[in-house]
């Protein structure tokens, strides 16, 4: 996927600028055997042959220490040549990555069936071609600018360094740095004397007032400029070639993995078992690129699971919406209103789920049933409040419920929502309605039509309530 000119650009840049990079500190000896200058070039070259790669894998391939590799990669990250991604994943999840590289390697990591889910941080890295192009151009521009500034007699701003703490200052900070006691600038932290940074490229020939010295310096700088141009010519040419070509983009690690694993699966279906098993540890993969492989997407992340869920629910039908979810004017299917025809006992079925107990209400219109639902919910709420007050009425309730139970089992007007509280509810409802008649009282009216006629004689107050409900 990476285009060849870009890889060549990376290789040229590596050899031009990073061939003396070493992971050893300044104090350590750089003897023949242990000198690892040029390591950077090797690593950059290896990255041109890979896309997103786990750092452990890269270290193994290159046969270098992980720590050295990390140090170098960190250096590259700061130089903006490489992007890194650090991800916490289980060993299982890490396998998905491996599957993504399945086309080129066949390494299968780790063990299956961890009991404890340990999240290790895995680091991945990838060359960032767009940034590399810009960074190389910027570097060249800065080099030329510096040389030109030096040769033009320096309208540059002086820099000062503190030898103690290494802090750098500008001439613009001079106001803050000037001290009263002596004639030097002092550091803000440690009060050490600041040292001016002298000409970096052309060594000043101390205090030489001759024009000759200045001319010599200018010539030295011109020489340097010329040498730079000739030595960097292939790199500059490559930059020009690459300028017009679209930059290879690998995208985010997740996106790349999704793409690569999809491509891999499309290529060889036999590998699909392992990676799909490991998808659990993976989390939400944005499967935006799976256009081609719809057929095989049995359980490849989110999309597959959604499909499964949908198929499951299709068999059961849409869920009955609980009364508190229903607002006025919602277009509810009959299923959702809980009006599908099914018979069941109300007593034993307190927690069996909404989809089971559904009875038709043929006569009722939508509004009534909505109000019924509302009433259910309201009564349930009131129930809590008035539970204490009902102690005296319990016997009455028992009688009523025993009356009510029979007709209910046969009546086709059961509402689903408050089944498990129905017994109490019915009893309480009688009492409640006396005290707080509601618009929703139609509920009771609708299904009590058959029953309350009988009861009306028994409890005369209900007649009043009947009247109220009608008005409501």
């Amino acid at each position: 996927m990476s285009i060849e000119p870009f890889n060549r650009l990376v290789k040229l840049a590596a050899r031009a600028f990073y061939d003396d990079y070493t992971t050893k500190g300044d104090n350590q000896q750089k003897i023949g055997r242990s000198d690892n200058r040029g390591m950077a070039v090797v690593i950059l070259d290896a990255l041109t042959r890979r896309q997103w790669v786990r750092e452990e894998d890269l270290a193994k391939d290159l046969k270098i220490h992980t720590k050295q590799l990390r140090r170098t990669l960190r250096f590259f990250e700061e130089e903006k040549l490489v992007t890194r991604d650090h991800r916490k994943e289980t060993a299982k999840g890490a396998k998905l990555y491996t599957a993504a590289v399945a086309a080129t390697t066949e390494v299968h990591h780790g063990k299956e069936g961890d009991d404890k889910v340990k999240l290790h941080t895995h680091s991945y890295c990838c060359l960032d071609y767009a940034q590399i192009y810009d960074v190389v151009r910027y570097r060249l521009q800065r080099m030329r600018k510096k040389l030109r500034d030096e040769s033009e007699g320096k309208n540059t701003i002086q820099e000062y360094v503190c030898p103690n703490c290494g802090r750098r200052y500008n001439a613009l900070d001079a106001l803050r740095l000037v001290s009263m006691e002596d004639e030097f600038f002092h550091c803000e932290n440690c009060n050490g004397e600041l040292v001016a940074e002298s000409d970096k490229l052309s060594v000043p020939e101390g205090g030489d007032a001759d024009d000759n010295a200045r001319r010599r310096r200018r010539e030295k700088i011109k020489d340097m400029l010329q040498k730079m141009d000739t030595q960097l010519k292939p790199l500059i040419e490559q930059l020009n070639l690459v300028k017009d070509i679209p930059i290879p983009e690998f995208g985010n690690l997740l996106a790349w993995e999704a793409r690569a694993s999809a491509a891999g699966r499309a290529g060889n279906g036999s590998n699909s078992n392992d990676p799909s098993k490991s998808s659990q540890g993976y989390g939400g993969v944005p499967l935006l690129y799976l256009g081609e492989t719809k057929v095989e997407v049995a359980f490849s992340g989110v999309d597959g699971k959604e499909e499964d869920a949908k198929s499951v629910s299709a068999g059961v039908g849409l869920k009955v919406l609980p009364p508190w979810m229903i607002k006025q004017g919602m277009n509810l299917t009959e299923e959702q209103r809980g009006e599908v025809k099914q018979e069941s006992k109300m007593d034993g079925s307190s927690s069996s789920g909404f989809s089971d107990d559904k009875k038709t209400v043929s006569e009722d219109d939508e509004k009534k049933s909505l109000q019924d639902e509302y009433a259910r919910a309201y009564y349930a709420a009131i129930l809590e409040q008035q539970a204490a007050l009902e102690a005296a009425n319990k016997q009455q309730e028992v009688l009523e419920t025993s009356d009510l139970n029979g007709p209910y089992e046969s009546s086709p007007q059961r509402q689903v929502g408050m089944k498990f509280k129905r017994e109490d509810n019915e009893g309480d409802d009688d009492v409640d309605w006396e005290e707080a008649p509601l618009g929703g009282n139609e509920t009771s009216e609708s299904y009590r039509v058959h029953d309350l006629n009988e009861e009306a004689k028994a409890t005369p107050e209900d007649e009043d309530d009947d009247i109220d409900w009608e008005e409501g």
Partner: protein
Amino acid sequence: MFFHIVLERNMQLHPRHFGRNLRDNLVSKLMKDVEGTCSGKHGFVVAITGIENVGKGLIRDGTGFVTFPVKYQCVVFRPFKGEILEAVVTMVNKMGFFAEAGPVQIFVSNHLIPDDMEFQSGDMPNYTTSDGSIKIQKDSEVRLKIIGTRVDATEIFCIGTIKDDFLGVINDPTA
């Protein structure tokens, strides 16, 4: 460089100043507040030359102060990079010298002082050419070129050079 521009400011006035002299009070308060200050955007306000417009006062809730939006004309001074100025030396140091050009301070580091001038410490530290013909010390006037400015919110500071042609001492106080 000097500019003559119109600036706007919201002035708060205490009720005790209300009355016949309201406008005068407002103007004098404005002058006291603004002249001599520096903003990073416009530079140093040197002097107010006139009041263009005083808007309607708005009484603040809670306090009795009244806020007037005032538009005024003023002379401002703002140094720019590449500008050439005359300045007066205020302090000479081993690392260079400080000079003032009106309200702005400029620092010339020894690196940007011609190589033939050397620092001489003493009672009156100075920079002198090897033949002693040119001397830079306190209160000397120099012409310098600004090569960098540092603009904070309320402060401007500059770096200068005298290493180019036609720059350097203009007037020697000791001569």
